[in-house]
């Protein structure tokens, strides 16, 4: 009798196990190729100047490879990471006016308030923006806004894709937006807080040089893994801006 009971237990154990495994609600492999998974390929950017853009892209690529990358690498090797991060933080903090304007133009007054709080905290406690104590406050987390994103919120499309010499990808909309962003920043004219032209230039050079290693590393990885680097960078630009606008 006992043997029979144990056989039953054994049978039950096997059955329960099979049921547990069968209940696994994972999806079929083929479902990954169904239409619902095709959601990503919708972001596009009009490129009527492709021929011109490709020529500039090629020019930029040779400048980056022969000149910018060696400078970026040397800078990165010489400059301690902490110092690089501190400099990056200072310049990012100084871009507060353009983030503020970007938020206000989109009617995001709550976000504008957060940006102001963040700027005040990082400028004072963070010693001129070198450190980012605001990172420790969940209530002060924001997405970086700019005027180009505000234009997008107002319903303006990209217009068309543009590759500028040296600075690279942008669009007509974002190019115009950048003018406003630059204008409200404290370093640039017309409302610059720095009187001397040479000082302004030096600060600009420091800012750009400090950003180069990060940009070059990302660009290099993309370029190496791409089938067509031009098309890859253009799509990356369109996807990135679409995400920023959506946030």
């Amino acid at each position, binding site marked *: 009798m006992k043997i029979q009971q144990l*056989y039953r237990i054994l049978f039950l154990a096997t059955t329960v196990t099979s049921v*547990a495994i069968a209940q696994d609600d*994972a999806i079929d*492999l083929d479902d*990954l190729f169904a239409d619902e998974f095709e959601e990503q390929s919708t972001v596009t950017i009009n490129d009527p100047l492709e021929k011109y853009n490709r020529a500039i892209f090629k020019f930029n690529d040779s400048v980056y490879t022969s000149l910018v990358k060696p400078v970026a690498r040397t800078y*990165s090797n010489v400059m301690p990471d902490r110092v690089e991060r501190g400099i990056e933080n200072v310049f990012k903090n100084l871009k507060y006016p353009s983030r503020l304007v970007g938020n206000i133009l989109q009617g995001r007054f709550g976000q504008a308030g957060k940006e102001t709080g963040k700027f005040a905290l990082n400028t004072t406690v963070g010693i001129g923006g070198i450190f980012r104590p605001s990172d420790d406050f969940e209530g002060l987390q924001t997405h970086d806004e700019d005027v180009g994103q505000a234009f997008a919120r107002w319903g303006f499309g990209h217009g068309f894709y543009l590759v500028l010499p040296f600075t690279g990808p942008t669009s007509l909309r974002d190019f115009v937006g950048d003018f406003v962003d630059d204008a409200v920043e404290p370093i640039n004219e017309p409302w610059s807080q720095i009187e001397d032209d040479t000082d302004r230039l030096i600060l600009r050079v420091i800012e750009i040089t400090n950003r180069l290693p990060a940009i070059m590393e990302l660009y290099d990885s993309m370029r190496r893994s791409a089938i067509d680097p031009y*098309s890859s960078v253009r799509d990356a630009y369109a996807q*990135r801006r679409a995400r920023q606008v959506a946030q």
Partner: protein
Amino acid sequence: MLLLKRISYLAVLTFALASLPNAQAEESPEKLLEQTISEVLDVLHASDQQISLIDKRTKILDLLQSRFSFDIIIRRALGRNWNLLSDSQQNQITTLISDLLIRAYTRELENGPKPEIKFLRTDDLGSNKIEIVTTVAYKSNFVSVSYRLANIKGRGWQVYDVLIEGISMVSNYRKQFDEHFQTKNAADLLKLLEGKLEE
């Protein structure tokens, strides 16, 4: 009595064996991904000078394949163009692009410091899909990297797309493939990929 004991052992063994795959399945996808990434970084930054770069990349590919379904990533990237390829071309392209990706994204890291990865949150995308959001602190930069995973029958939680700074790798490749196949064919693509790997 001996028979009773044996049957009891058998019952216990059945339960134990049965619970083993379930226990693995219950391990969170975040933990599994974290473990895979950590193992990859260990290989990449192994101080053992005896391991050649090629061996390191082979090891990394093996490790990644446990959690990253490259075949799915590449088939999804090719989209409708997938069906223009023969079986052999599909396999070749999958292998070549996997190699290309490993090379492109390990080259910088090989000589640099070990990046710090912070797992921020997991978003439920519905239908057995999730997005694990991380930030990678590398040198002086912070890069946002998100992994999209699906719970696939017979494979478990697998990465089917990676988003760097919000840029979907699948979508980015799809744009390039779509443009390529407008004017060129699969043989040209294979040639191009082989050329890139020789660079």
